[in-house]
């Protein structure tokens, strides 16, 4: 006995999720790029694209619910669907954080760039890399990779602390930077949240493979 139609639908929801992850990765990169280069058009595009990310989430959720209602999935099939449901929620929230960065880029568009941008860009690069690797772990059902990705959250947290101190120093030295620095600290907060949500994805990979719900990384924030 085979379940061709079911197998097809099961891979479809996973592909949808991966497409959504790609959209979120692009949003993060573009949000930071817009911030660095003061590119208003790019920032607006990130904001507009977030609607597509949200739509994708609801589409995928619908498909998952339909599978549960009509196919009575069990065992690893059930865990796959539940994982996709959880991960798409996390992705959607990450998209919102990227959108938050783009909104700050719009607000700072007429102000000159500051030094902290280098570390902020580094944070974004690590967070986006973690995101793509966590999805790779999902595709390969690779718990070792999932755990390794989680460990990189510490790097993001360390940079978060570092940039916070830099911004604070800037604000003390030159009160004229307070507005920009306060906004930038929100950018780093968004990036820290994104990396933290990646660890949720990694936890789902472990659940998918081992059937155990395990907290892999307890965020400092």
């Amino acid at each position, binding site marked *: *006995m085979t379940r061709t139609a079911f197998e097809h639908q099961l891979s479809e929801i996973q592909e949808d999720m991966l497409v959504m992850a790609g959209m979120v990765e692009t949003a993060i990169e573009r949000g930071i790029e817009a911030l660095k280069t003061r590119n208003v058009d790019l920032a607006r595009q990130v904001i507009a694209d977030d609607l597509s990310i949200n739509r994708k989430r609801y589409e995928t959720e619908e498909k998952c619910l339909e599978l549960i209602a009509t196919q009575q*999935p*069990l065992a690893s099939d059930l865990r796959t669907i539940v994982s996709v449901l959880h991960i798409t929620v996390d992705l959607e929230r990450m998209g919102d954080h990227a959108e938050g960065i783009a909104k700050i880029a719009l607000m700072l568009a007429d102000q000159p760039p500051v030094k902290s941008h280098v570390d902020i860009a580094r944070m974004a690069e690590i967070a986006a890399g973690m995101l793509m690797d966590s999805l790779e772990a999902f595709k390969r059902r690779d718990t070792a990779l999932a755990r390794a990705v989680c460990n990189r959250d510490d790097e993001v947290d360390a940079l978060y602390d570092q940039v916070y101190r830099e911004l604070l120093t800037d604000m003390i030295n030159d009160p004229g930077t307070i507005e920009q620095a306060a906004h930038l600290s929100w950018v780093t907060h968004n990036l820290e949240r994104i990396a933290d949500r990646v660890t949720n994805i990694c936890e789902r990979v472990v659940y998918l493979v081992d059937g155990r719900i395990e907290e892999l990384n307890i965020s400092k924030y």
Partner: protein
Amino acid sequence: MVRERLEDLLRERRMVFDPEAELARAESDEQRPVATAPGPSVLETRNLEVYYGHFQALRSVSLAIAARQITAIIGPSGCGKSTLLRCFNRMNDMIPSFRAAGEVLFEGRNIYERAMDVVDVRRRIGMVFQKPNPFPKPVYENVAFGARINGYEGRLDEIVERALRQAALWDEVKDKLRHNALALSGGQQQRLCIARALAIEPEVILMDEPCSALDPVATLKIEDLMRELARDYTIVIVTHNMQQAARVSDWTAVMMMADDRAGEMVELGATREVFTNPRDKRTEDYITGRFG
């Protein structure tokens, strides 16, 4: 209390293994799963082998049935589920070529012992079949029948009412006690058969596909009833309907057919574990519909 204890045990280990059986398995080279549900058990098979003539229907089945819980036996057609169920109260004895080796322990005693009173075994371990099979007699007589032939001399009315109430049928038939049981609906007939089994106060109720001839509403009524009955009785149910096993049982035993078509026990575990994260690949393939 029992449930809490089971939960504790489950947290520690998925299954508690029978040390003797484990030893026997270690001695033989075969990797045959020997499954035991944690907690007190009332029924237990040890290396049960069943043959119909030269055909081996069950091979080395060892499992324990938890007291006052519902254990579902699932598996593909022909894997020996019903054969195993029928071993629990020696219903296979009627089949001329039937032969069993190993043990079926009921409260520690092998029911296949020569000295065992089969009628007493079947009184204490009742059975409900796939198709409702009431006697073509009044509702009342169906329920009173067991008590009568067991020489019960007390108040039959009380027994009949109690059994019908336990089977969640009383309100529907209290005005029809003298009507022929065959006039009831299929679902009512099946609950009447359950009442008939309950009337003689068994300890265990075996159910062989009890809902396969019923519509979904009647099926849900029987399932509710089973949950209710599990407070006082040990229930073993054979079902083809995996969703039913998932809905109703505490423990799920999975059986499969080996290459020579002999039935084997593959896995026994807490139902929620078996259906979300089975240990055995064959269970996974079967319950996800990728079997065979």
